């Protein structure tokens, strides 16, 4: 087991080198010179040359790439050419915001998705089944941007139940230590702030949860339906076990494998940041940071961001594989 984990972690190295090469080439292939974007209408030859030199953009590309690799090896992702801020710092604070949002969204998605999927499968063709599957279809197809604006309009502006955007009321201060605000507010022993943060998280995380929720519900339903048709379920029922034990003890666990895969994948995707949700709800997460960096051709931030996201994705996949082993002892990890 330990060997397996080590092996998988070692495999991260070639993956990350490949990703950094890819990230570097793609962002440098996109036309548009950061110096010109910074100077805008005010660019002239002298100022562009001077700025390119300042930003280290006048070096040949392979030198820039080697410098980038050298920096990564020493744990440094460089400095943003737009804000002059350390890329590691800039990415991690926005990543923390995204992580918090993603975790809450995934909790909503998993709880609601699995519950809805299970009930729909057990009561196949019932009204609940039909309604929840229509709901899931809407959830998958509804553009988050539009859903977000509707939610703000209804719940923040018309009803005033939730704050329209942001992470915390402007009047409340929480010392930022981990930059996971829920965590930080607890560390500071500030329950008031904790509640306020949760309150702020509700709308964006719900909007973000719609798609994974729908996918999880549908996956749970189909997987459950398949398991419920198996012989051992018939046997369990035949020996007189109550239906809830049949469902919860025998069926769900076996139906879970594909669902876990989907949860893992969705979690990995959401960790990459959600540009739409973050934009509508003014949430300072990784997706928007990267979007802005791409528009400004902030090479170091984009490269670092892609590296971070791929790292998370590989890590989440590893976790999923480990979870398989726990759920289904027949799977051997070697």
């Amino acid at each position, binding site marked *: 087991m330990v060997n397996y984990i080590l092996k998988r972690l070692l495999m991260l190295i070639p993956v990350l080198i490949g990703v950094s090469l890819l990230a570097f080439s793609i962002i440098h292939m996109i036309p548009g010179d950061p110096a010109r974007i910074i100077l805008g209408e005010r660019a002239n030859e002298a100022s562009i040359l001077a700025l390119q030199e300042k930003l280290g953009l006048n070096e040949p590309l392979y030198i820039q790439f080697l410098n980038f690799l050298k920096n990564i090896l020493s744990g440094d992702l460089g400095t943003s050419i737009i804000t002059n801020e350390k890329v590691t710092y800039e990415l991690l604070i926005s990543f923390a915001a995204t992580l918090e949002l993603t975790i809450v969204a995934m909790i909503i998605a998993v709880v609601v998705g699995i519950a809805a999927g299970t009930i729909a499968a057990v009561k196949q063709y019932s009204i609940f089944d039909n309604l929840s599957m229509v709901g899931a279809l809407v959830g998958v197809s509804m553009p988050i941007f539009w859903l977000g604006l509707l939610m703000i309009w209804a719940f923040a502006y018309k009803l005033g139940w939730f704050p329209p955007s942001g992470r915390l009321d402007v009047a409340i201060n929480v010392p*930022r230590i981990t930059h996971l605000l829920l965590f930080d507010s607890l560390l500071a022993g500030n329950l008031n702030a904790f509640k306020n943060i949760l309150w702020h998280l509700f709308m964006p995380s719900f909007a973000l949860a719609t798609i994974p929720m729908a996918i999880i519900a549908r996956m749970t339903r189909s997987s459950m339906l398949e398991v419920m048709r198996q012989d051992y379920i018939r046997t369990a029922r035949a020996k007189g076990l109550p239906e809830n034990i049949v469902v919860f003890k025998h069926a769900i666990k076996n139906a879970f494998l594909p669902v876990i895969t989907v949860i893992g994948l969705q979690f990995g995707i959401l960790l990459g940041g959600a540009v739409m949700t973050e934009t509508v709800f003014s949430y300072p997460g990784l997706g928007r940071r990267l979007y802005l960096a791409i528009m400004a051709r902030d090479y170091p931030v984009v490269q670092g961001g892609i590296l971070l996201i791929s790292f998370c994705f590989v890590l989440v996949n590893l976790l999923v594989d480990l979870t398989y082993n726990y759920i289904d002892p027949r799977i051997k990890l070697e």
Partner: protein
Amino acid sequence: MQGKKWILVLIALLSLSLFIAGCGGTTPEPKQEAEAPKEPEVKEKVLVFARGGDSVGLDPANETDGESFYVSRNITDTLVDYEDDNTNIIPGLAKTWEPKDKDGLIWVFNLREGVKFHDGTPLNAEAVKFNFDRWMFEDNAYRYEGEAYEYWGYMFGGYPGVVKEVRAVDELTVEVELTQPFAPFINNLGMPCFGISSPEAIKKYGKDFFKNPVGTGPFKFVEWLKDDKIVLEKNEDYWGEGPKLDKLIFRAIPDNSARLMELQAGTIDIMIGLSPEDATIVEQDPNLQLLLRPSMNVGYLALHNEKEPFDNVLVRRALNHAIDKQALIDAFYAGFAKTAKNPLPPSLWGYNDAIVDYEYDPAKAKALLAEAGYPNGFKTELWAMPVARPYMPQPKEIATAMQQQFAAVGVEAEIVTMDWGTYLEKGEFGEHSMYLIGWNGDNGDPDNFMYVLLDKDNAKVGSAGNFAFYKSDKVHDLLIAAQKETDQAKRAKLYEEAQVIIHEDAPWIPLVHSTPPIAAKKSVKNFIPHPTGGESTFWKVDIE
């Protein structure tokens, strides 16, 4: 079994969060006190100002974007300042100033007494000299890695440019010596990028000064949460009339509609970047007020004066007659713009109002084209930028409308667009025929429009601000004479004269001067939008 699995996931997440905490701790951050929020006895006056993007940095000398200056101009003061709603000059940190010689080569500034930076250090002649030296000299020790100070080079013609030396004569007297007479000098010094920062703080924070700004302004910097908010608080020791607000908070809310709903929900007080079509919502809301920012910009179509058929003045005049500017304004600015007939916006001194614009007249356009030898029109390209600019919110849509108006006089224009950086680059190299572009004024001096956009000095391939490649010796002579003249009335005359020649030569189709709408709560008092695109008058603002 299932319990174990969740514990595993939980441990993984926990370790990830600790990892983040570890990494985050390595960079210094603005100090914050761990405090439980107490209900203040007297309600604090907090104003929340919302815009689309966050600031890039708060060291004014090293920034180029409006979002940064929006905040920094409340923290740092400049030597001279602009009047509330125009660019006439009033005293700032300098009480008085005057040229020492008749050519205006040496300027003497007398500073206010007893002004202190937010860190308690005094504002004196040495501090001013320190700031100038940092702006001017590329080898200055307090320019940190990656800092380019673009605006100095831009406004003063390089490093050190037209400024030869800055001397601290005594505690409160500064002398600035120029290499040549330079009329826009005083107006330049009112720009937010030339805000005076505390030398001690620059030394103390080093590379991180951009997130720990210290000036003499009416508000002090408190904290900055990236992509979220910047918090400023009242400077109790402000040298001028103290601010009425206790806190001034700048929030970044990227989506225009979401920002408007926040304003309606009451969580913010003022918003910029209101979509013109939403203006009616604001006007109909009894709790909101609509304000207009006076225009200091121009959006125009540059015609490449050295390329056929635009090298023919008759063709250029014909195209001027072909465009219905008011229709563009009604369709794409919801009326929040004025038609342009000159390169200068009407709010600037030197604007020549006597000029009569080429009226919209397709028949006349056709006749002129025939006279020029193009009775059946011609085929050409119409370049449109890919991004919204303050002077042009929807460039591609505007280009499409213009395409139809050109087609009506027989000119078949194909729309060309590309990413913003490449667009500017190709424009500077003159690869276009017709080029949509515009300009936001910096310092309120006509030179900042006329010389930059229409002088032959700036029609150089590869670094053209003069995208029309318009080269008129007569205009050049007038503009250079205006740069050397120190008397404003005489300068205005020179600019008026230049506009007459430019009108006749018609190197552009001047399109619009936009007046961007701003929405605020009715309870916000004395907020005066400034034409330069940002306000340094927040100390006057009050909430009822």
